[in-house]
């Protein structure tokens, strides 16, 4: 994945800042609670939700289990429809391909539809280095780009900003990038959206190259699908002469019919709508007399850690993800830590299982992500493709503390246990020993009970992690098992 996030601190440190930031906490609480309630309502409207969810899961699982076949079929379909297919093993290769394709058009600027894949590979920065300016056109991406900020949510990358902050960014920065913000711009969402419309319109109308991702690619027909709301996607997909779509290899569905599942589950899960305002579907290019949209279409198929993820039998379910972000919106940890703490373009619960698989668990941030969850299960409950996120989190924790076999860049490797878990590992072993020797456990309990008056209510050292914010429970005079034995299971009289 992109180098943008290299050197990020571990999740707990980054979250520490966020938890103390009252503005951020307020913004996130308001936004996530708003969408949470709406989603629940939109899902409740559909009586067969559980069946749609199961079908979506099975379609994705089947596709992943035969991904080689469907990739080849997709390539044939797209090529037959007039498109050109490129394959990129990693971020650098994808960036090189896109930069070359843009240069071949002779253009030095591009307009972009919001795309997780291009964020993941750091495309904008790579194009900048090649003298190509990429304009983000999704409103939230625009806010992030103008604010020299990082996205903090999959669907709403500027969710950490409130209307006042957005107004200030528009006033200050729009003029640097093109048409300035209107005089006297207020902070009402309608006025802010209007300012974005005016600012971006000149860019859409003159753009010769558009860059997108895709929500789905249909193997049998070669059709790509982009689901959006604002119309910036339609602008980028239809007005330019050249369209370059960078799409992860896991975005395939086998048949046209499969869209009937995801076009029902995705909008309700992500924006909590029956249907999002605009969905564009295109198959290659159109012939010249009926020319509609770009005359040149390139599809860049991106691996960048996806095949490594696919090699893990437990972890591969993360590749079912359709990027709806419902898991972020219900996650109590995301709500308090914010998206930036996850150190990745994929924040929240899905990010906590995707980033350490796409990037590996070698860095401090990636090794800490599997622990960024209380395992409450709310994410799994709302996931429209039934990714058991807690299961994968625990599986990745195991990879961190125990190491073991994995695949990195297509090569089998044996990971060493991560550093920094030695004390914990020793404690776990000791506890396991005591728990398999009930006599030892009992001895420990008795000792603790006998010395209970000496126990402090707060702890020094690592124990502060608990007692910094919570009091410790007081130890009882005797453990239950002693009472049970002493009183013959309560029948013996003594109370």
């Amino acid at each position, binding site marked *: 994945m992109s180098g943008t996030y290299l050197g990020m601190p571990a999740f707990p440190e980054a979250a520490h800042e966020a938890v103390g930031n009252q503005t951020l906490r307020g913004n996130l609480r308001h936004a996530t609670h708003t969408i949470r309630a709406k989603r629940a309502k939109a899902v409740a409207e559909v009586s067969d939700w559980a069946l749609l969810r199961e079908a979506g899961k099975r379609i994705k699982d089947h596709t992943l289990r035969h991904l080689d076949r469907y990739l080849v079929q997709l390539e044939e379909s797209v090529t037959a429809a007039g498109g050109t297919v490129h394959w990129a093993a990693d971020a650098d290769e994808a960036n090189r391909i896109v930069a070359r394709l843009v240069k071949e058009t002779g253009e030095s600027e591009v307009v972009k539809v919001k795309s997780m894949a291009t964020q993941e590979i750091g495309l904008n920065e790579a194009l900048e280095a090649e003298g190509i300016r990429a304009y983000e056109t999704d409103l939230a991406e625009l806010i992030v780009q103008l604010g020299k900020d990082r996205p903090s949510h999959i669907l709403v990358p500027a969710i950490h900003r409130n209307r006042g902050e957005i107004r200030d960014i528009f006033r200050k920065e729009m003029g640097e990038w093109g048409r300035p913000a209107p005089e006297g711009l207020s902070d009402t969402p309608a006025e802010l959206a209007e300012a974005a419309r005016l600012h971006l319109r000149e860019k859409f109308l003159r753009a010769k190259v558009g860059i997108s991702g895709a929500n789905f690619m249909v193997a049998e027909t070669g059709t790509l699908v982009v689901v959006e709301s604002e119309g910036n996607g339609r602008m980028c997909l239809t007005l330019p002469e050249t369209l370059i779509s960078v799409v992860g290899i896991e975005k395939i569905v086998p048949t046209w019919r499969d869209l009937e599942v995801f076009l029902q589950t995705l909008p309700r899960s992500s924006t909590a709508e029956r249907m999002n305002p605009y969905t564009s579907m295109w198959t290659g290019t159109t012939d010249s007399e009926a020319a509609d949209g770009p005359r040149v279409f390139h599809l860049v198929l991106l691996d960048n850690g996806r095949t490594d993820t696919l090699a893990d039998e437990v972890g591969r379910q993360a590749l079912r993800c359709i990027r709806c972000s419902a898991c972020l919106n219900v996650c109590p940890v995301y709500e308090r830590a914010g998206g930036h703490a996850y150190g990745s373009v994929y924040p929240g619960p899905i990010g906590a299982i995707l980033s350490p698989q796409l990037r590996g668990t070698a860095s401090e941030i990636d090794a800490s992500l599997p622990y960024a*969850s209380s395992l409450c299960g709310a994410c799994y409950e709302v996931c429209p493709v039934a990714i058991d996120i807690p299961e994968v989190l625990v599986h990745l924790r195991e990879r961190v503390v125990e190491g073991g076999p994995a695949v990195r860049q297509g090569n089998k490797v044996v990971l060493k246990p991560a550093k920094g878990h030695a004390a914990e590992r020793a404690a776990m072993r000791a506890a396991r020993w005591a728990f398999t020797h009930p006599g030892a456990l009992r001895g420990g309990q008795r000792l603790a009970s006998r010395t209970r008056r000496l126990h402090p209510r707060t702890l020094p050292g690592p124990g502060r992690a608990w007692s910094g914010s919570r009091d410790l*429970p007081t130890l009882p005079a005797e453990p239950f098992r002693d009472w049970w034995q002493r009183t013959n299971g309560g029948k013996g009289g003594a109370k």
Partner: protein
Amino acid sequence: MRVALFLTCVNDTLYPDTGRAVVKLLTRLGVEVDFPMAQTCCGQAHYNTGYRHEAEPLARHFSDVFGEYEAIVTPSGSCGAMVRELYPRMGERARAEGRGDTLAATLAPVVPKTYELTEFLVDVLGVTDVGAYYPHQVTYHPTCHGLRGLGLGDRPRRLLQAVKGLELVELPGAEECCGFGGTFALKNSDVSAAMGVDKVRNAESTGAEVLCAADNSCLMHIGGTMTRLEVGMKPVHIAEILASTEEEPAV
């Protein structure tokens, strides 16, 4: 009916009152309760922290201790979910690692007969009115592994609603995690504490005297937060409410 009480290591060590309450309640309902002295820990903390292989001997030990009983009852949603949901998964993983079916076969017998307390009362004994008396305002926090793992649904609430004298008050944001999460509380203590504070503030807003849950681990976190914030509410395990009667009221 004779059942084994799987009290859990946390309750055994820190919350013996909950254990006594379960014994009193089940005995009152005509159930013969045994406490196998060899019981220790289900291995949940190990498993969920990433030490699956350390958890395996504990799971085998659990199966040895409880395998012969008709039913196993535990006053903990998360330990119940460990046995019911995660023991089968441990078996599958061992198989996937090329270690054959032995672990799966060893653990299989205890999986279907392990019940969380409220499940056992409502589904097995078929009671919702357990003859309890508890003259207090109570708000109920459904803990995550009970709610989403075991699917306890409205069983605990139905039991509480049938308690004489008890006024059940709706908890805002009830289904949100309290922030305990086992080792999460230590590894991500800032976020955990923030979640705990929000849970306590929601509980406080109900005006209830008691916050009830079916899991003492969560109550330890919530209760520790309450005393730190000097909120005058009491965290109480549901077993202690259901065990309380007019003759022998809980204190």
